[in-house]
């Protein structure tokens, strides 16, 4: 089991080179090797979306991705979206609209939201709900998350 592979990638703008087991999940790599515990694991089978993050700008399930698969890639986790005193637009709208309760699904929601806002017009509420439908939130009933994404869309597009 010690056939370690060397990977080199960019995580939140910093170059990272590590030796990893081929079976190591990207989520575990980030959480355990890099201490980036903002990425959450809710199911480890690709359904809940809690582990969603951005790889080369696309939203990806880090529980279905091996660390070795992102060799050479650019990974962005929730820690890089903003800091507590300088949050991103989407993060701010989540706070304003009360789009989170326990916060466990939130990092995945934020990554999905960023991806959606970058790629789709998100004209209607249905578009937003459709886009978020791969992320489960057990706390909020989604309404305030949908409103937060709509508010972020309006703000980003008005700039």
């Amino acid at each position, binding site marked *: 089991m010690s056939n370690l592979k060397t990977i080199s990638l960019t995580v939140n703008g910093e170059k990272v080179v590590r030796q990893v087991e081929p079976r190591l999940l990207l989520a575990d790599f980030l959480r355990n090797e890099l201490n980036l515990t903002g990425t959450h694991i809710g199911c480890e089978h690709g359904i809940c979306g809690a582990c969603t993050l951005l790889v080369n700008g696309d939203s990806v399930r880090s529980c279905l991705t091996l660390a070795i698969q992102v060799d050479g890639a650019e990974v962005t986790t929730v820690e890089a979206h903003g800091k507590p005193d300088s949050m991103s637009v989407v993060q701010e709208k989540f706070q304003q609209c009360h789009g989170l309760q*326990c916060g466990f699904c939130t990092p995945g929601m934020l990554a999905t939201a960023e991806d959606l806002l970058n790629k789709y017009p998100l004209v209607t509420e249905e578009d937003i709900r459709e886009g978020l439908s791969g992320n489960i939130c057990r706390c909020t009933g989604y309404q305030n998350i949908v409103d937060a994404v709509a508010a972020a869309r309006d703000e980003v597009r008005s700039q």
Partner: protein
Amino acid sequence: MPESNSSQYVGSRVKRREDPRLLTGRGRYVDDIKVAGMLHIAFRRSDYSHARILSIDTSAAKASPGVVEVFTAKDIEGEFNPVLAQSRMRDYQPTIMQILAADKVRFVGEAVVAVVAESRYLAEDAAALVEIEYDELPLVTDPEQALINSSAKLHEQMDSNVLLQREFNRGDVDEAFYGASVYIKERFRFTRKTSLAMENRTYLAEYNSAEQALTLHTTSQVPGIIRDILVDALDIPGSHLRVVAPDVGGGFGGKTSLYPEEVLAPILAKKLERPVKWTGDRIEDLISTSQGFDEIIDAEIAVDREGRILGLRADVIGDVGAYSIYPWTAGIEPVQVVSFLPGPYKIENYHGRVRGVATSKPPTGPYRGVGRPVSTFVMERLVDMAARELQMDPREIRQRNLVQPHEFPYKAASGIVWDQSGFTQGLNGACEAIGYDGLRRTQAQARAQGRMVGIGIASFAELTGIGSRLSASPGMPINTGTETASISVDSTGGITARFGVTSYGQGLETSLAQVVADELNVEISQIRILQGDSAAVSHSTGSYASRGAVLGAGAAILACRALDQKLKAVAAILLSSSAEDILIRDGVFSGPGSDEKLTFKDLAKAYYSQMGLIPAPIRNEIGELSATQMYDPEWGTTSSATHIALVEIDPDTFKVKVDKYVVAEDCGQMLNPMIVDGQVHGGVAQGIGAALYEEMIYDEQGQNLTASLVDYVVPSATEIPRMDVVHLDLEKPKTLGGVRGMGEGGTIGAPAAIANAVADALAPLGQQVTTLPVTPQRIFELVQAAKANQ
């Protein structure tokens, strides 16, 4: 009375202080915590629902890379005292918690062997190598079979599989039924669900052998309860045992009970003298976290020509699973079904019986709403069915039977006393908000076009913020009626408020800061809230049963009042005034005797640090600038609401779409309306899940067929409608602060409202909804049955 502040926090939409950390990945959940030398546990769990363990071979597991030790029940014998949930209920049979299954297994997923290794990966590798030989025992999966068949007993030492039974009686039910013009009898089924918090259960135990002190980090809603029982189970004094629940990723009841893994982690940390962590995965959650509901309800209602309810009868079988869960007992879920069944209605004749039957499935425990989603579903279905027979509008029949505003306090048929609450106002408020009459007209048009459109109403009441006169679970010998707040001003003027009530998403850190800021008349940012730590206050049982805001705010108010007196006594000396004349405004003390003004910092420095300003005898008397108070609301208070849903059934897929949803509720004084709305939204979403999608399915072998999120379907953003929440502005209850609990109501009302709406949509076909979830498959079957009847 608190002086007026320039800003009033209670009642306003204050942004949550927990959000910046949770939004930026800087929260601290149990699995985020790593300590030096930490080991990881993986379990080998039972593949059988009822079997004797013949042998366990751990040799291959022990030889597996990175494995430190492998434990079976034998290896931890004598390391703990037995844990069992006691109750004063008559005819109740407790069960002993199996930390690791000893001689036999009683459900698929029960932990049998624990492997401890250097990493979670290595522990799981080794767990797969454990060999267990079983001898299968007779199946105990069907609760009705288990009830009558005493030959197949799950717990041999017991008289039967019936862990509890209870009856409620009022009036003469037979007589009432005799005189009825409408009589409905139906069998209802509310299937098994699970809380499904997004964060899985995780425990990290550290033992300091030099100090003989233990710290457990746990994904728990009730760190105080866990501390108290672990003290007994592990013989460690409470002063040396600290239970911490940091950021917790949702709970909804699933994290209110003590779990075997939660006892085992401390045992192993002590034995190995190394920190050990267990991080549960989703499959383990689905097969071993406490599950919810699961009752068969035979119910009958008798109604007169005017629609008045004359009598109600119910016989409930609760499938409580293999063990009576600590501390709530197996009674918490099914007994509440019977005690709350009469709902917000005036019912003079009632007979309810409940039996909780052990089966070889995971134990049931509290899940959001506890019992009342089921009782409301049954009662509201019966009321609608009676209305249909009478050709009366569902709104009208409710209006005629609800306890009227002048009739409070009202003692319900099961003995629960409702204090003043907006029962009728809720019904009217919801009808108005959704435009009920217009909606009925729209429905008639849609029906004329052959569309399956339905409107469903559900009215209910719940007892929240229960004090010490009642127990949160029937007969449970634990005081769940008090909470503590401890508020102190340190030598720099820093204000810290410690609470026993915990937060696992409800934003109590913010709501409680609002209360404290208003009471002390300070800027909210000056207040630090500490909670989720058994060391924060001397006694606490945590957050469950819609009590956190009621008891937390009450304790905060009492502690602030006591602290306020001390602060004013000190200020009076410093400002050459008398305490009664001291004013605190925006965190500044002033008095008529002087132009000087003091901030909290000035006052604290003067009091603690500057010699000679305060005479020693006075300081000796006042003591620390802090106050700790307990609050006991004694009986609790009644929250109530009416939900109305508009649904449409797709004629091709039989999928139900919820088009409109309205809630009108009386939750008393809102601490933070934004948070209150969020609680309602989330509760309704879980209720819609329970009504349309969620079902834990066990086959007759006791195998869980829904052990992944592909099979246990919870709603996503596309299944949940936009909700309109109306808060009734009515007389406040007598709780301190006028607060009523409201964390569970959404889940109580939604299953019934959706069930009635789907039934209404199917009404032209003459079919009834009696089982939840009412899935496309079940609707298809109803439609087929209707066709066959034609």
